[in-house]
């Protein structure tokens, strides 16, 4: 069954660049210029740990993740959520070469952190929901499509170095 959180048939072979329309570029840059990284990042990561609790397996060193309140108040979760947003920022600044931009991060997530790449999609979905909540009516279908396409490219690039 196709995964709803990743654009269908996204191809990021090394000889095929992702193409962005002007609307998509402007939309992605606009969203990231408007959201506060240290609000949205922590909210998205905390939501992911609550909605998909098995993702807590990667954060066993983070202390108390016992319930939603603990997760939301956990300073290590907050700090890591912000770190994630700065990681995404690198992709926003390198839209035409996300794959190479993320080579080292992909290796890190595969070989050191051992993150199941399917879990990137779960975090991406939570980030979409948090951004949707922030932007409200302005998060139109077209804006959502651009944002999810960006996240799909990020997710695909992060999974590229797994073997």
């Amino acid at each position, binding site marked *: *069954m*196709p995964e709803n959180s990743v654009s269908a048939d996204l191809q990021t072979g090394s000889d095929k660049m992702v193409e962005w329309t002007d609307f998509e570029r402007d939309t992605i840059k606009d969203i990231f210029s408007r959201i506060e990284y240290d609000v949205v990042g922590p909210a998205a990561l905390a939501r992911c740990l609550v909605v998909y609790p098995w993702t807590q397996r990667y954060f066993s060193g983070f202390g108390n993740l016992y319930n939603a309140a603990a997760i939301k108040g956990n300073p290590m979760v907050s700090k890591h959520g912000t770190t994630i947003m700065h990681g995404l920022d690198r992709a926003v600044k390198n839209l035409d070469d996300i794959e190479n931009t993320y080579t080292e991060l992909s290796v890190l997530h595969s070989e050191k952190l051992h993150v199941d790449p399917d879990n990137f999609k779960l975090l991406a979905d939570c980030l979409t929901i948090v951004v949707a909540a922030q932007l409200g009516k302005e*998060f139109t279908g077209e804006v959502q499509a651009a944002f999810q396409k960006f996240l799909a490219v990020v997710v695909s690039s992060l999974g590229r170095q797994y073997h």
Partner: protein
Amino acid sequence: MSLSDKDKAAVRALWSTISKSSDAIGNDALSRMIVVYPQTKIYFSHWPEVIPGSIHIKEHGKKVMGGIELAVSKIDDLKTGLFELSEQHAFKLRVDPGNFKILNHCILVVIATMFPKEFTPEAHVSLDKFLSGVALALAERYR
């Protein structure tokens, strides 16, 4: 991942808040779906046009949200409660069940835009479990 009493209470509580906007939610969710996931338009090729906010989308959104309302009322036994809807989707509509997840995601996004305060992570996990249960019940009669 079955629904706990806490999940059911959360779903009922959220539904009581959002149900007055169910027409708007249905319209927005379907309008969004055909834009973000254009492959889903194939299921509406019998309409003269498949565009966001059209009269067809609005009417269909009402039908879909009516189904969700039914599901909330049958939350203790979705499989039995949605039996007829499952038969309809399996034998008449033949919607690939992968699309249930897609529409569910769009519904969650719409609720986030319209009810950001109420759609806490706790409400989100219960609603996600519920909608996944609905999708499972709808697919029950497929094969």
